[in-house]
């Protein structure tokens, strides 16, 4: 199985913990995962780090019944391509949602979850997943 060594885990952690991407200050394009060069502006581009809001919509999805070993315990689960409100699309598991409830276009929001653990002894990887957006608390309480 793909064993993730601690340094690799650590390098990707920041962008997964906070949904950190990049933005070209020349043309406004946003990227996740973060890029070093803007493909549109090339040398004219000016890339800066940006933190995405975590709000987005489900662009497409699939239900996973047969998963790689490290995700087996979650099956069946929803794997979706989420379009962030800032533009980039990110692949993520959708949680707090039953497979029969998921829909294309559904509003989702980022949450912080365990992504995988190698075994009982290894490093735990944390990061964003998405759940159905619920703003009912703003009006109902």
């Amino acid at each position, binding site marked *: 199985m793909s064993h993730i060594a601690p340094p690799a885990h650590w390098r990707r*952690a*920041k962008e997964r*913990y*906070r949904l950190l991407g990049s933005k070209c200050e020349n043309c406004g394009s946003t990227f996740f995962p973060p890029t070093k060069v803007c493909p549109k502006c090339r040398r004219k581009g000016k890339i800066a780090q940006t*933190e995405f809001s975590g709000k987005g919509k489900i662009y497409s999805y699939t239900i996973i019944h047969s998963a790689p070993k490290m995700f087996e*315990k*979650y099956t069946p689960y929803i794997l979706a391509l989420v379009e962030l409100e800032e533009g980039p699309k990110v692949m993520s*598991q959708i*949680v*707090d949602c039953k497979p029969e409830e998921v829909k294309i276009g559904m509003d989702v929001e980022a*949450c*912080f*979850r*365990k*992504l995988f653990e190698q075994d009982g002894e290894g490093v*735990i990887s*944390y990061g964003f*997943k998405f759940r159905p957006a*619920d703003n*009912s*608390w*703003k009006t*109902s*309480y």
Partner: protein
Amino acid sequence: MRVGIVGYGVYIPRYRIRVEDIARVWGHDAGSIKSGLDVIEKSVPSLDEDTATLAVEAARNALKRAKDVKPSEIGAVYVGSESHPYAVKPTAATVAEALGIVPNTTAADLEFACKAATAGIQACMGLVRGGYIKYGMSVGADTAQCAPGDALEYTASAGAAAYIIGGENLVAEIEDTFSYTQDVPDFWRREGSLYPRHGGRFTGEPAYFEHVIKASKGLMEKLGTNVSDYNYVVFHMPNGKFPLRAAKILGFTTEHIQPSLVVEVIGNTYSGSSLLGLAAVLDVAKAGERILLTSYGSGAGSDSFSIRVTDLIEERRNLAPPVKYYVERKEYIDYALYARNRCLYRG
């Protein structure tokens, strides 16, 4: 210099299991358990939730309510828990990283059974008052462990509450704090053991009540206040009965304690318990009202706080979901699914 709460936030996982569904598996009488504990159901974390993820969600909500506080201004992060995911590797660093508080901050995990996070609030108060930091954060979070079939299984649940402490823009001022600590073997877990052990009935009088009552009385003596000065009282909630009885012993009424009693429908969230109760009160309290908060941690100790709500509460409390939202947002699971989650989430 004043010191107090600048922002607060909570998180409760959405899964619940009913007392009936646990009692059926062990052949216990659900009716007598429910009336004995005053608990009807408890929260259960998802497979991919642990103390660190709960703490991050609560901390993000606290930061939303603290509005003008930048993560980089938070100079201390403490996480109190008895179910830290690692034996060695701090949950507090994960929380600090996930909120963008890193790298210029101090951070540490605290342990004192269910009261570690109120000790964290006291540490933040000292650092703020001493001028060492502008803001500090203390989070109480647990995915509580219990041996299958043990009486604790009916109450041991999951949840988190986070508090940002500072000297200005307070939603509630902390007027003073007082603690009471002794070495008492009422509840423990040895290094390497999966589940805690407890002293059964011994957990009541010499443990919970002795410390909660003495700390609360000590605080009121120190401040020269009495029961009639407080609008609300909040205690650690191992079950629904203990806090109600402690309130009665001190001379408080059911009305004083009722707004904080979330234990009946979410169980005992251990390190999150009294601080979730405080959040439930801050969700409804009016400016000028006073709250007496007393935590309890087995082993044993209590931290008591006298808190006065400020005008700022009105505009701040609507910036993040209230306790009631998380309490009512729920999906029931059966014992089989609960067992699957539990064997994987224990810390």
